Structures are given as C-alpha cells and as structure tokens.
C-alpha cells in the first residue's frame, strides 16, 4: 500500500496532444482542401490568393503568426504523441530513444516555427 507514488508529468504532453488533436480534427481537412486544392485550382479567392507576397503579409501579421504557430506546433505535438504510442503496434519497442525522437521532433519543429515566424518581422 505504501509504495512511494511519483506524480506523472504526462498531463503536459497529453494536454498538447489533446489540443493538437482538437485543432487538427477541426481544421486539418479544411486546410488541406483550401490550400491544397481549392486555391491552386482557382476555385476560391482568385488565382493569386496564395502568392508569395500575400502569404508573407499573412505571416507578418501577429494574428497570422499566432495561427501558423498554433497549427504547426500543436499538429506536431499531436503527431509525436500518437506516433510514439503507436510504435508498439507496428512491433517497435518504444524506449527512451523513440521518445526523444518523437517529442524532440515536435519540440524542434516548434522552435523552428517560432524562430522563422519571428525572423520574418512584423
């Protein structure tokens, strides 16, 4: 009964996973549809909606930055967590190494996203 209990720090990763899951479920398919099909095919917003100049302006606005940062980083945290826990199902024994790659990858992506968004200026 009296074994010492160590508090799990999983809520951090679980929280990021959950937030990313919600965001990707709500926005993922729509984003693919808009940016991958509708706009390039000229069905929505006109042909140059996603031109370099427009996209740069979008990423330079603080709201656009917040949106891009949330999408990129939370999607990555969601994916990292999901992939880590699915490794067992494809026969890979997930140890500390796999953990470092999955969560480290998400962290790296988050840092790169933050730095590039900041370096674009406002």
């Amino acid at each position, binding site marked *: *009964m009296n074994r010492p*209990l*160590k*508090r*799990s*720090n*999983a*809520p*951090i990763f*679980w*929280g990021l996973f959950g937030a990313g899951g919600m965001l990707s479920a709500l926005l993922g398919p729509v984003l693919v549809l808009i940016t991958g099909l509708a706009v390039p095919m000229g069905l929505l917003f006109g042909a140059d909606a996603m031109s370099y100049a427009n996209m740069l302006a979008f990423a330079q606005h603080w709201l656009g930055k917040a949106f891009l940062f949330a999408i990129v980083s939370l999607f990555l945290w969601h994916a990292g967590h999901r992939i880590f*826990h699915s490794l*067992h*199902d494809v026969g890979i024994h997930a140890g500390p190494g796999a953990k470092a790659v999955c969560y480290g990858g998400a962290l790296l992506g988050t840092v790169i996203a933050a730095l590039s968004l900041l370096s674009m200026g406002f």
Partner: protein
Amino acid sequence: MAEKTITIKVLRYNPEQDQAPVFQAYQVPFSDDMSVLQALLFIKDELDETLSFRWSCRMAICGSCGMMINGNPKLSCKTFLRDIYPETVRVEALNHFPIERDLVVVMDDFIDKLERIQPYIIPAAPRSLAQGEYLQTPAQLEKYEQFSSCINCLLCYAACPQYGLNPEFIGPGALALLHRYNADSRDGASAQRMELVAAEEGVFNCTAVGYCSEVCPKHVDPANAVNQNKTTAAGNYFMSFLKPRGTSK
C-alpha cells in the same frame, strides 16, 4: 444417428512439471445450448480430471471463468459453442497474467491494485446514526451506477495492450472501480485517490484503445472512467502550480 461433436483445444500448463504450455485437444459432444464452460466441465467429468479452471455461478455474475476463447477475452459461461461450431474452440488462460495451472491465472497483482484504490466509501465527514441514512437522487445514483457493475473478471486487463506493456499500470477494471467511489455523492475521498490517479502508474498509461470497454461483459465502460479521470488529473496537475508550495495535493 451419429452424435455431433466439437473440438476443444485447451492450453495446458503445470509450471512445476512442464517446460512450456502445450495445447491438448478434446472431442466434446455438441449441443446448441452448451457454453464453453459446460464443454470444459464435460472434459473434467468425463475425459480428463486433471484439467484446471475456475468457475462458480455459470451465469456471468461471479466473474471467475474469464479466459481467452479463440484469442478474445471472454467469460466461458457466457460464450456458446453454437457461435463457434463447426470451428475448433481454442481456450487459453487470460492474457497478461502468469499461469498458475492450465486456465487458472495468478491474480495477486490485481488484488493488490484493488486494495490500493481504496474501493469503499470514505465519507467527507463522519456521520452519526441519529443523522439517519444517506439520501441519493436518481441523478446522483446514475453518476456511478454503471461503474459499480464490475465483477472483477479481468477480461479488460487481458484486453489492455498498455497493461501488457507495463504491469505497473493500475489498469481499466480497478480504475473504473476507483471512479465508482469518486463519483458517489456519499464519498469524499477523491482528493486522496488523486495521488494514485495522477501517478506514473495512473491513468496516463492509457492510450484510449477502448478494447477494455468492448470486452467487458457488464457494460462497465472502463475506458470512459479512465478518460474522465485523465481530464480531472490534468486539471489537478496544472492547478497544482497555482497553489502555494507545501499545500499541494
């Protein structure tokens, strides 16, 4: 008229004598209304008295007859030969538990976990006889009733890949029971139980596979209980940073 028979392959193992478990096949007379448990009882009575397995009620109430039947965790008294016939019935001890003998598993790990969740009502304040009985509304009853149907059959443990990976995990059945007491309006010990819920052996081992709830013969839905407790444990975790040091819990 030739009697219909069905083949039952049973995984036999006596750890004191055998090197490894081996399957042994038996031919058992088949009838429409026979359960797998009845087939095993036939084997024990008529063919091989050395076969060991647990059972008692024969009606999905005692929870002692759980085993792997053709690869799935099932109560053998609630699984009928007619749903498998003419295929062979393959019977093995429950997954993820050490074999004591044949189909009997060692349950010590689960019993230990059961004790750790404090599966009894701990009132917030002591109550005197003069105060009379507790009153509970139907809505309050509904909050925990489903989780109180658990018969400790361990099917959900045999179904849980995360328990298979890490036996330290408190696991679906015990966590559903923990939730049953937390959700009871007469109980005041959720804060005490939170320590275990939020610990490394607690709810966050669950990756929301959901197979536990699928195999549960009593519709307890342990996956739901675990998920509700993930949310409260996460809330509790982040709140704990807001409280001054020394008052945590």
